[in-house]
């Protein structure tokens, strides 16, 4: 057994393995100081809620309190390992500032109240608006951090009961493009890849995916392959010199906003060298000739100039991809939150389609999720989709859903796709939505252009309900605040980025009067007296397990089929990948085997969109294009940036994460080890830009865009020239409130309101920005971790490390065994 400071060494000790071998076990555990494993009363099964990897763990309970966590060795996802955010993040559950009683606004102030008063006020305002202005005046904005049962209940209440089209999640900010991209290429959501592809791949490409920080356990798996015999080659596309870039065979650092140009040049090279599986394309895809035609103009030389990357390295990347035998690709926010998000991410799918690299070990695409249960927001229909990957423009699908819910099809609004979050906010802005119910998310910090967002959310005419576990920046603007239970305090299931479903059981009671989100939603539905078409209560369950059973029926026969799963089956074992049915009781590791897709016109979730205009493809058009349900190769032209740098704003600003925090830090900022590792905002610039402006480590910079200003200490890092990076985690719950000027620190003060027309995901990574030095460093360094992409390019800063409370036990199992 080793004791490792997992703040200083976030990925822990290596357990090397070779291609086709089983990834060795390593059990990470962290208990509160002074507690020994033998003293733990019970271990309660769960999985991670602080990122999308879905690492399985057991929660240690002693005396009715959580005292630590331990990775589950038998789980397929993590083989016992845990992310530092999970090892320390559970402490936030015990924070003294947890919301423990409902709050209501009286004479301008939020004051404590009881559940009856709070819920009646929420239900009353809903009824009032339904009568006065109709269901389109009601909106719901949820998250990627609740449980499947909660999303499904919310979708039923909103779509089937209230009859509003305005339901979306903050998944719009993180995972909308993943879903859109899969719908474009395969006409349906559903991850083609699986984590075990890492065990087999000979080339792994990471496109805008800093996996070392966003999914640390997946990176541990890759690191262990890299440390073993016959390691895979890594291709990294990222404007920052991330840990992935450090380990890459080829690292391409394109100008932000030029991903489509780069991808088209890679495809151009693949076609030029005929690194194409023509038999596969012929048998299983449509659209190849359009791709051939379009990429003609996208030469490596042209891309080298537009993207500012060396031509030879683009060629080398194409050669690695083109000659690989088992190609795995992953994509994340560097593509999803950038200009032409869907168009760029679709080209990654195109590479796999034309190379025939799908549905076999080591040949997967992971269009990653950013949040732990984002997949469920998508499946259950709480995010601008219909439940069960049903197609809103296919009347048969709507009828099927209406039958499951026992409502009239016309009561489920489907005259247009469910409204996306950015448009919901626009409708709040123009006053046509007057009631917004926000669950477990913090738009006052996480949405773009915060000055606008604050002014939208603080309007007098808006009735804002916020259901959360802390008094977040958004909750502070609410009319009613509902205190919720969180992970470890309630039961439910959720699904990670490779379709693995986990059960997370209640370990301890929530604080004070806080209640599980499901219970609050059920209470709301009951007060609204929502009925089905026979007059029976619309929501037919009272417990998470009954909600899960209800969801199973809804998923029956659809791609995300859960009918073979039960709570009991998920108890005590590894997580299980959907589709899981009677026929496939152990789940399905790989989909799209032998080129069988879910894209038949009558079955598919989506007919796709125009990648430039976002206009949905009409059913008849789709039928003509893809009558027999093949994969769809969709070519895309490169478009100039919407906000290019200017003389006045010469930099390109990108925002992003650090390993030690999640989202707006509501939990990780309350875990002392994590908070200390990255205590405050910083800004990164390149060595050349620092030299040109005379900046050095720790100088205080003011970064500005036409939207606002942020003040931060500078870290001269390995980022590419002309680009500034700000982490987006830092808001105002532990500082003075943000006001759009002066010493603000939220990165989204600066971002612009613009989104990808196909996925509707906001663009956080191409704003034009200026930076000036306010004062030189007084000897302080930037509060940026030294262990990650934010480490200094040259010279040294004090190393990021934890104290004794950060020591984690690592137990290594005897190695060996087959895959």
């Amino acid at each position: 057994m080793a004791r490792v400071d997992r703040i200083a060494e976030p990925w822990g000790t290596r357990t090397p393995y070779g291609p086709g071998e089983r990834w060795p076990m390593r059990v990470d555990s962290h208990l509160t100081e002074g507690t020994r494993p033998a003293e733990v009363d019970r271990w309660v099964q769960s999985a991670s809620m602080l990122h999308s990897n879905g690492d399985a763990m057991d929660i240690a309970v002693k005396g009715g309190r959580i005292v630590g966590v331990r990775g589950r060795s038998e789980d397929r996802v993590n083989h016992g390992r845990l992310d530092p955010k999970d090892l320390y993040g559970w402490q936030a559950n015990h924070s003294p500032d947890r919301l423990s009683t409902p709050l209501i606004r009286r004479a301008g102030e939020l004051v404590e109240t009881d559940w009856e008063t709070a819920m009646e006020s929420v239900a009353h305002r809903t009824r009032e608006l339904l009568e006065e202005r109709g269901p389109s005046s009601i909106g719901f904005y949820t998250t990627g951090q609740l449980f499947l049962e909660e999303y499904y209940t919310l979708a039923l209440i909103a779509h089937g009961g209230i009859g509003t089209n305005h339901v979306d999640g903050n998944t719009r900010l993180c995972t909308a493009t993943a879903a859109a991209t899969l719908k474009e290429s395969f006409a349906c959501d559903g991850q083609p890849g699986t984590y075990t592809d890492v065990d087999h791949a000979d080339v792994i490409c990471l496109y805008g995916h800093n996996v070392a920080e966003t999914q640390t356990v997946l990176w541990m798996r890759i690191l262990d392959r890299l440390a073993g015999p016959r390691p895979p080659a890594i291709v990294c596309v990222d404007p920052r010199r991330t840990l992935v870039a450090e380990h890459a065979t080829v690292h391409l650092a394109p100008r932000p906003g030029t991903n489509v140009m780069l991808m088209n040049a890679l495809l151009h090279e693949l076609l030029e060298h005929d690194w194409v599986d023509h038999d596969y394309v012929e048998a299983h895809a449509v659209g190849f000739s359009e791709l051939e035609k379009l990429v003609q103009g996208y030469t490596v030389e042209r891309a080298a100039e537009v993207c500012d990357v060396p031509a030879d390295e683009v060629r080398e990347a194409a050669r690695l991809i083109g000659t690989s035998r088992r190609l795995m690709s992953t994509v994340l926010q560097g593509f999803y939150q950038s200009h032409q998000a869907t168009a760029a991410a679709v080209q990654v799918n195109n590479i796999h389609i034309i190379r025939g690299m799908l549905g076999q070990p080591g040949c997967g695409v992971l269009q990653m999720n950013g949040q732990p249960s984002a997949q469920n927001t998508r499946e259950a229909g709480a995010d601008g989709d219909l439940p069960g990957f049903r197609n809103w423009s296919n009347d048969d699908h709507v009828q099927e859903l209406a039958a499951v819910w026992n409502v009239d099809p016309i009561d489920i609004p489907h005259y247009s796709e469910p409204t996306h979050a950015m448009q919901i906010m626009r409708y709040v802005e123009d006053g046509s939505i007057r009631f917004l119910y926000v669950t477990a998310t913090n738009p006052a910090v996480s949405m773009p252009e915060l000055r606008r967002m604050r002014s939208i959310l603080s309007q007098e005419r808006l009735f804002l309900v916020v259901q959360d576990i802390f008094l977040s920046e958004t909750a502070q603007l609410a009319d009613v605040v509902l205190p919720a239970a969180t992970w470890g305090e309630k039961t439910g299931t959720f699904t990670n980025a490779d379709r693995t479903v986990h059960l997370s059981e209640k370990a301890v009671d929530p604080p004070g009067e806080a209640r599980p989100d499901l219970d609050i939603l059920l209470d709301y539905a009951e007060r609204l007296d929502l009925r089905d078409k026979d007059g029976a209560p619309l929501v037919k369950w009272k417990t998470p397990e009954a909600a899960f059973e209800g969801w199973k029926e809804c998923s029956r026969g659809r791609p995300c089929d859960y009918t073979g799963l039960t709570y009991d089956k998920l108890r005590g074992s590894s997580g299980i990948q959907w589709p899981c049915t009677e026929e496939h009781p152990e789940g399905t590791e790989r989909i799209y085997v032998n080129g069988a897709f879910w894209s038949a016109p009558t079955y598919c979730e989506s007919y796709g969109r125009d990648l430039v205009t976002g206009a949905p493809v009409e059913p008849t058009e789709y039928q003509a294009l893809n009558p027999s349900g093949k994969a769809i190769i969709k070519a895309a032209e490169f478009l100039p940036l919407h906000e290019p740098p200017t003389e006045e704003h010469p930099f390109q600003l990108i925002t992003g994460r650090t390993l030690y925090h999640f989202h707006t830090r509501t939990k990780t900022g309350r875990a002392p080890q994590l908070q200390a590792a990255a205590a405050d905002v910083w800004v990164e610039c390149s060595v050349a830009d620092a030299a040109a402006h005379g900046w050095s480590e720790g100088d205080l910079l003011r970064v500005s865009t036409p939207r606002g200003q942020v003040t931060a200490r500078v870290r001269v890092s390995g980022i590419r020239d002309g680009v500034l990076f700000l982490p987006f985690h830092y808001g105002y719950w532990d500082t003075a409130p943000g006001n759009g000027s002066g010493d603000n620190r939220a990165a989204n003060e600066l971002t612009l309101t613009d989104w990808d027309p196909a996925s509707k995901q906001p663009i956080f990574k191409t704003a034009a920005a200026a930076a000036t030095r306010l004062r030189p460093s007084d000897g302080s360094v930037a509060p940026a971790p030294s262990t990650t992409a934010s480490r200094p390019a040259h010279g040294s800063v004090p190393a990021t490390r934890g104290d004794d409370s950060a020591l984690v036990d690592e137990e290594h199992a005897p190695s060996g065994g087959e895959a």
Partner: protein
Amino acid sequence: MKIAQTLRNLHGNKVGAAIEELHRSENELVGALLNLSDEHKIDHEIFYVARDIARWSQEHVRLLAEVGRDYDLDLSPESEDEPTLLARVKQKGAELTGRFHEPSLLLLADLRRVHRMAAGVSLDWEVLAQTAQALKDRELLSTAQECHPETLRQLRWANAKVKETAAQIMVTG
């Protein structure tokens, strides 16, 4: 080749007039899209996408000017652009009325206008493509084949935006 020349000589005037008309209507579509963009700056997707796809029509104008030379036309390759000051005034106006729901009726009207114009442009391309085939004018035909699909995308976009926003505009507020 000789037949093509003969046909062109015989019918050149009519074809020239059609090219000229399309050049004018593409130009007008550029103006309508930019106007839509400016007037609805607060509807961010309208603002950006209308500008992105106005670029297609600008390119069509350039290509039409080029092909027009074969028919002795002297058409400007530069499409008309709005004066910057006027655009700014419109954008500011959009920002000032952003808190009101009623102006969104104007959005429907403006989208309708773009749709109508794009439909006209689409038919003009249809006429030109048919003509080009009859004349065996390969250059004109390939121009039509290159441009017309983009006009159809503009048309579908206007239609899709109306479909997406109509209910909220008409029923709520």
